[in-house]
């Protein structure tokens, strides 16, 4: 890697995501790269293995509905106050996607183990849950070596091939300011590669900014950055803008039927040129 690239737009970022990528994404409130997600649909990416930290919403639902997804690894897929995720639900019922159902703390712990380069992590809870029964090849119950008679679940480390998220700003060296969204650190550190969209690319070095430095992911983890104004829309970007609840309600309604979803994609994904993103 020879320094972080600042690329032209989300189409250029989307071109860096191969089919079959294990894609790490954040929860709805953390800064979801929605503009990039639409570009991925436009580019027609296939067979994504989406791993959500720790859950996902409209992002996964659109990718699933558009046929981009092979596997979903998550604690939940939900449109939250706008209801269940319609494409996800349909895909589960038809068996169109593989499920790796999990629980938030197991995904966090697994990804933190990935950050640390350790092979697995022992965690409390989970014993007796069907989440463990259905992932018995990964989630093993072992006896605590330090205290025999104390069963524990171990969770394998998670290192996504690529993490994608949206943040407030990056500088020209590729350092990315994420503010209070600490989960972006976990994603960027855990993933093999990291692609980021930002509201704004600034001229000053963020690591030299005493107040912003503690919430800045250094460029050593970032492969490429693209500017994408309102790049989390219709979701929120903490500290910048809230969710577009009218649009999310519209999505929930339209995606409620396969035909409605096709129309949604036509209107809000395909016709949105890169320039508009």
């Amino acid at each position: 890697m020879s320094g972080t690239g600042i690329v032209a737009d989300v189409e250029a970022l989307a071109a860096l995501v191969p089919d079959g990528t294990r894609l790490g994404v954040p929860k709805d409130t953390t800064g979801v790269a929605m503009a990039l997600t639409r570009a991925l649909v436009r580019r027609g990416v296939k067979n994504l293995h989406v791993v959500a930290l720790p859950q996902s919403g409209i992002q996964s639902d659109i990718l699933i509905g558009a046929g981009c997804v092979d596997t979903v690894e998550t604690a939940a897929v939900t449109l939250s106050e706008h209801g269940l995720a319609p494409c996800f639900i349909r895909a589960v019922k038809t068996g169109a996607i593989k499920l790796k159902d999990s629980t938030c703390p197991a995904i966090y712990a697994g990804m933190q183990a990935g950050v640390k380069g350790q092979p697995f992590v022992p965690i409390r809870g989970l014993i007796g849950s069907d989440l463990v029964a259905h992932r018995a090849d990964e989630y093993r119950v072992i006896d605590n070596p330090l205290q025999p008679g104390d069963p524990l679940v171990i969770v394998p480390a998670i290192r996504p091939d690529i993490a994608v998220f949206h943040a407030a700003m990056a500088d020209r060296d590729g350092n990315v300011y994420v503010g209070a969204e600490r989960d972006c650190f976990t994603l960027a550190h855990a993933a093999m590669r990291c692609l980021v969209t930002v509201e704004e690319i600034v001229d000053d070095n963020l690591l030299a900014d005493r107040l912003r430095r503690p919430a800045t992911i250094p460029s050593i983890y970032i492969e490429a950055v693209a500017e994408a104004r309102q790049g989390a829309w219709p979701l929120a970007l903490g500290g910048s803008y809230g969710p577009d609840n009218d649009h999310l309600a519209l999505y929930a309604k339209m995606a409620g039927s396969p035909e409605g979803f096709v129309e949604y994609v036509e209107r809000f994904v395909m016709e949105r040129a890169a320039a508009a993103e």
Partner: protein
Amino acid sequence: MSDDYKPEELLVGVITRLLAGVRHVAVGMLSPIPGSASLLARELSGGEMRVSVLGSRKMNPWTDGGVELFDFAAQGRLDAFFLSGGQIDGQANVNLVGIGDYPQTKVRWSGSFGSAYLYFLVPRVILFRDEHTRRVFVPKVDFISAPGTSNEGVYRPGGPYALVTNLCLFGFDKERRRFRLESVHPGHTVEEVLDHTGFEIDVPEQVPTTEAPSAEWLTLMRGPIAQQIAEPYPKFAARVFGIAEAAA
């Protein structure tokens, strides 16, 4: 006691009583009733109780990412939390995944969230479901997101403490692994509860009527609590406590 209260206000009162003595309670997403109860309990504690409300801007102390709440709970710092379920059975097993054979369930919900962890680690997990039907309260859940009980030897400081529904309040007996009917809400009967519950429960000879919220508590709910809960839940605050959405 006041006769003039909404069903939600009764439930807020029930849950508030279950939180007595708690140091820190956390409220999950989409939980305005547990949230209001937690805020009322804090008010009654003179501000000693800590309340964190996921989805709130102001009542959210976390600064280390989404994992922090789970770590906090695993360390034993969190005393109370709320869970719900698409299905809940008589052993307090919770199903948040779906109905039918996994993975291709014929009904699918969002997923298990943090249930499989917090149910083990938080001493007072209060189950809350305001649809008391045999569709929800089943003999055996189709998928165990989080088990209600564990075998001996499993590290489990936490577990089910109570189940609050629109009809009644259950306690949970960990030894017997069964729910026990504690009280039936005003206007409802033991028979109604039995009719709508798909699993066996323990019913004492005398089942009290659930205590209605006092005038003092209602004043607090409709005053400071309504103002506070209106920040994360403006629509709920407007509908139940009658304060203008703009007040948030």
